[in-house]
């Protein structure tokens, strides 16, 4: 029974990754990121209740505060201050990106096969999805040109990693998780500072202005 819940949540996660890949609006991207966080929380709670690993509850609580409340809030505030709330990104050819994404999912499932055989957890079928989420987020970073969407891609990559960790080994040790959470938080804050600096310098958040950094 629990296995089916987990599979459902995993497929939602994958779907969200694809949704992010094709989403043009930055604000909707943040929403999607928040939903991704919620799915993760639900997934962690389900695993915790099935396996009786109590530390996963703390982990879920941490994810909830950080990835559903604090980070989206910071990001919302940021886009409001930067006045990019309603910005629309021009994406290159969404259908072909989708096709690449599908290829990546297939590759990930193939790659995950041997690991799933080794893992003894009830969630072992979802390792492929976790890996696909990581790679799709990376793909999303590649196809975006706005700095904020890149940061969101980076954060959702971290989500995928977290998902992979919970599904292979029932989560990392609490200390590691706390450390990672803090890193992500600090990382976002620092990147926020960078956004303002970039904005001030180039009057835009588009990364093409940074391309002059190439050595002449």
């Amino acid at each position, binding site marked *: 029974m629990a296995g089916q819940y987990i599979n459902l949540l995993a497929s939602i996660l994958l779907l969200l990754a694809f949704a992010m890949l094709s989403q043009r609006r930055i604000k909707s991207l943040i929403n999607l990121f928040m939903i991704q966080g919620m799915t993760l929380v639900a997934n962690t709670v389900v695993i915790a209740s099935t396996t009786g690993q109590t530390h996963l509850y703390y982990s879920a609580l941490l994810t909830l505060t950080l990835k559903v409340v604090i980070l989206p809030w910071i990001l919302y505030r940021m886009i409001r201050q930067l006045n990019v709330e309603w910005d629309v990104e021009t994406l290159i050819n969404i259908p072909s990106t989708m096709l690449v994404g599908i290829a*990546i999912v297939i*590759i990930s499932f*193939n*790659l995950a096969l*041997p690991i799933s055989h080794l893992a003894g957890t009830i969630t072992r079928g979802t390792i492929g999805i976790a890996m696909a989420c990581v*790679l799709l987020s*990376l*793909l999303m*970073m*590649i*196809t*975006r*040109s706005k700095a904020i969407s*890149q940061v969101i891609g980076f954060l959702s990559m971290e989500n995928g990693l977290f998902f992979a960790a919970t599904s292979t080994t029932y989560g990392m040790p609490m200390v590691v998780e706390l450390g990672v959470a803090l890193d992500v938080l600090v990382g976002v804050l620092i990147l926020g500072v960078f956004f303002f600096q970039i904005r001030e310098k180039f009057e835009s958040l588009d*990364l*093409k202005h*940074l*391309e*002059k*950094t*190439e*050595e002449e």
Partner: protein
Amino acid sequence: MNGLPMDLIVSAALFWIALGLVGLVAQKKPSFVRNAIFPLGALAGAIVAVSAFFSSGVETAVSFLGLPDLPFHLRLDSLSAFFLFILGSATFGISLYATGYFRNEEKHIGTLCLEYHVFLAAMTFVLLADDAFLFMVSWEAMALSSYFLVTTDHKIPEIRRAGFIYLLMAHVGAISILLYFGSMGGDYGFDAMRKTHLSGMQATFAFLLAFFGFGAKAGMLPLHVWLPEAHPAAPSPVSALMSGVMLKTAVYGLLRVLFDLLHMQVWWWGVVILATGLSTALFGAVFSAVQSDMKRLLAYSSVENIGIIFVGIGLTVIFKAYAMNSLAALALVATLYHCLNHAFFKSLLFLCTGSVLHATGERNLGKLGGLIHKMPWVAWTALIGSLAIAGLPPLNGFVSEWLLLQAFLFTPGLPHSYLNMLIPVAAAALVLTGAAAGYVMVKFYGIIFLGQPREEKLREAKSSGKWERAGFLWLAAGCVLLGLVPFFVIDHLAGVSNFLVGASLENRDWLFLAPISSERASYSPLLFLIVTLSAIGLAFIAVRRFYHGRVRREIPWNCGYPVWNARMQDTSEGFGQPIRQIFDPFFKVGRELPSPFDSKPRYSAKTEDKFWYWIYIPFGRAAEYFAGLFGKIQQGRILVYLLYNFVTLIVLLLIVQ
């Protein structure tokens, strides 16, 4: 006594570093730095020389320096002691000289003092190192400190270029040495390497890497290009140190690798070293004959001498590979003797050019001349150095070259038909090199010191100061003594040759030097000197007795012309012209001929090294081309870089799967 020499040498090296730091701190008081620190450095050099001379047996130590769990290992054995003796004794003279010389360099005396003494300490540690880690660290410290010394006048673009070439070659060599250490079985200690037994292929590979690496530092053909650039660029005491001592560290490294770290020698390795050495020697001699810059001429002469040393090493390897140990000992002793000699006479000559440069501001031979009247000290000591380097008895250059030729005379006994036919040809080529070296020295000495001053300003040239004279005297005395009493040196070298090739020269007679047996060949420099002196004395008395006594004093090279001037003398280009004609295919000559209407015609010919065009420029172009190809993937776009990451990740994942 045991352990003391090592302690003294290490303390001297650390003392050098301390002196350098003091010099840097006290750079506001340049006269203090010069007059106190450099003589103290010379004293430390003397301590190194004396303690290396009296060290016996093998001493090892583990230093407190180094990384955690990776301490530096030090070892003083007869080989390193001999090279430390070279270092110390040459440094003593050069540092004394530097005290006087650097009075014109007071602007950056602080950094100069630091680099100079760090350079000395680094060379000491190269010679003491007993593990690859310390060896590489001090090797690099040596390369870097000498790079900064070379680029002392970094405001001049040519000097910056020379420094760059030097640094580049030093690093190419260092990479090769590092790879060599990597190929020696994985452990970084020399002790472990001694116990490693590589298979034939691996050993050959290791040898080639080491040969390339140390050859680049020594100035072996075709890796010699940095030498004629860097030596003229550096201040003269530094050129003296680099040519006299630093090149020897490369020889030391090669000997250490060949006879100590590798457990076997293959005869064709010896042939490779011998052939390279021979072509290096010939090349150096021919090129130094056509140079018109005096320091460049000496730099090419260093190339030549390194070639001779390599020939000796090659011969040693061949004899050792056929287990002819006593002949290997002969060749080895000749090689080591030549290292010592070269340290003395080449340092001496570089210091002389330094004094000439200071007095006249000229390096170009075409603008010098007649300096023997103005700078008698420099001229007479330079005469000793020139005679020694030309290999004339009874000075030291003759002894080592004679020993080497003696070793060649035994090559027909080699159990290999091609070798015993071909190596005598090599001996002939070596003799040709010696003759060319003599030619070069006649040119060097004659054009700078004899004849008439070619420029007006030379008439105001001042002689050298007392510190410079002390340096000259020490090095010239070394040239004479090493030539007159070879017995003691060879006696001392027995330890090294026993250690490296398992045999030593049996030479019981202190008056006659007879390397193999007195029936075959023997040489007595003292007797030679006495006979020569008495012959000269007799001739002098005879002339005084029978000559009518009417003397007319004339200006040199007057030749009975009623009108004469300095431009009627033979020029350096003119002197080198026959060599340039004979060896024409080796050179790329750019001539500048005066027009017939020129009132002050000047002829100049610039000879260039064809190796630039054969190897370096094509290589540089290829490197640039490939760098351009790689440059294409460097787009400067973050998204593209992310894509590279992504693709690499996917590909690696697929491979791992």
